[in-house]
């Protein structure tokens, strides 16, 4: 059984059907991609999978457990982390604290109103480990909002990594990045691949096709194709759309 499964998800906003009969499954240890044009329902799909919206119908299973309709914080605590397409950081915190606040160690002490927050060496080490991974360790003391755009994108992922997830959802991690930034991000994702299960929503086909083990194509709120990057390139729909124009 796959680590994460969605069965026949339906969601409507008013009279608009946003997701229709969407079934997805993500195997442990693999990198899965979700592509599709603007407004296809990709981010909405993420929002249902991570608890932001409740589906009208359908089930979401993680690690064999039914998590349909659970709150984001409950799902996060089970080991599902996500990054956001629109930067969602703790802007006034230092880079270090953005990561430290998301560590399970900090969360476990959340009821402590008098102790020191970050006196524990192991906790600080853990935060630096995460920052090393994304290449931000030397900027640990900078304020998050003072970082350049590319570094903020990396921090966005670092915060998600800090919660020690089994499964990581990345929502358009390359949004707004130039080709340099994209290359650096691809390196980072390649490093994470194999360590944990990753699901990426992307616009940038080249980025995704070079990284993913398998890809689902979403359009009009439905999964219209699924397969390995190689298989998908031969798919008539992908070929017919701009998505197929790859080298």
């Amino acid at each position, binding site marked *: 059984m796959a680590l994460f499964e969605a069965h026949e998800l339906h969601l409507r906003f008013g009279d608009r059907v946003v997701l229709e009969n969407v079934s997805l499954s993500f195997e442990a240890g693999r990198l899965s991609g979700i592509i599709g044009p603007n407004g296809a329902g990709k981010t909405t799909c993420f929002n249902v999978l991570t608890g932001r919206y409740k589906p009208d119908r359908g089930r979401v299973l993680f690690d064999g457990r039914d998590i349909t309709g659970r709150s984001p914080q409950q799902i996060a605590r089970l080991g599902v982390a996500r990054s956001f397409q629109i930067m969602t950081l*703790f802007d006034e915190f230092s880079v*270090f604290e953005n990561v430290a606040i998301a560590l399970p160690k900090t*969360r476990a002490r959340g009821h402590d109103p008098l102790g020191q927050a970050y006196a524990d060496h192991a906790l600080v080490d853990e935060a630096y480990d995460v920052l090393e991974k994304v290449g931000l360790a030397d900027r640990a003391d900078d304020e998050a909002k003072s970082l350049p755009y590319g570094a903020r994108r990396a921090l966005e992922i670092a915060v998600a990594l800090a919660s020690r997830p089994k499964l990581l959802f990345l929502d358009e991690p390359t949004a707004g990045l130039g080709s340099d930034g994209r290359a650096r991000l691809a390196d980072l994702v390649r490093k994470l691949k194999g360590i944990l299960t990753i699901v990426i929503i992307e616009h940038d086909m080249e980025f995704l096709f070079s990284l993913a083990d398998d890809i689902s194509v979403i359009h009009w709120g439905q999964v219209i194709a699924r397969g390995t990057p190689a298989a998908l390139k031969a798919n008539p729909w992908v070929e017919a759309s701009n998505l197929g124009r790859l080298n």
Partner: protein
Amino acid sequence: MAAGRTVPTFTSAMLLSWAFFATVPFWIEQVGLYQYLGIEILIFATYALAFNLVLGHAGLPSFGHGAFFGIGAYAFGLAQFNVGRNLWLCLAIAALTAAAAGALVALFISHRRGIYYALLTIAFGQIFWFVAIKAHSITGGEDGLLKIERLPLSLGFTRVELASNVSLYYFVLAIFICVSLLLWRLAHSPFGRIVKAIKQNETRARFVGYDVWRYKAAVLVISAGLSGLAGALFAMAQTSAFPDVMSLHYSGYVVMMTLVGGGLVSFWGPVIGAGAFFLARDVIGALTTGWMLWFGLSFVVLVLFKPEGIAGMFAGITSRERKAAPPRGKPQLQAR
């Protein structure tokens, strides 16, 4: 291996300000003011610090905090009339009653944010104020609860009378020190940092696993309890309790004190603001009965041109110095 990061429990600014407050009774009359003013400033400084836990630290706009202050004042009086004439007991009852009221309000509003939160706090504040005026048999209505005593302080080995303004001032100072120390520790604790994270980005806080509303509720309960404690001290100082401190405009005063002082950028801002407020009342008030007009105008000017308040002005000066200093740490290879 990286070292742990700790925040000192005592800072030099903290110790200096405590020492400064300790000297006040020795010179306040020489400069033409009076002992009771010191008591008022410290009580409202305590109240504003407690209030700023909600406004500045958690970013929750509460405009009905007077309710908790007033409930503390009434509870202190009623406890000494009906339960027992022990200072610690009555103070504890005051703080707990206000905290309970805070918990009740928190139940209804902790899932809200922004303007909805603000409006609900006003609504609840008005309800409590209205009840205080109408429940004549309990609170004395608009006549207030009179003949509240300044109970003596029993420390086990000795008993100190607090009837004089100077002795009461030092007792209030001791409470102020405890409350400010408590809130300082809280601000740097795991709980406090998480609350600060929620203020910056509630969505992200939820997605890294925090039950945001529980933290928001807890903050309001703690703040309400400490506001109630300040209210109890005010009942002692005034030897009575009146509904006016629960009214909307009194709730507005504490917001003003906190913002003028710079509570949004500085832990000690509310203390500065409480001092500025009462000094303005007495100094400008000696010149004109319309002192609130001038204080209000200065509030408008401050919010327009220096929203970080008085503490922000000092922070501006020190950070300019810091910027002039050579960069610390490893040299940066990349140009920024």
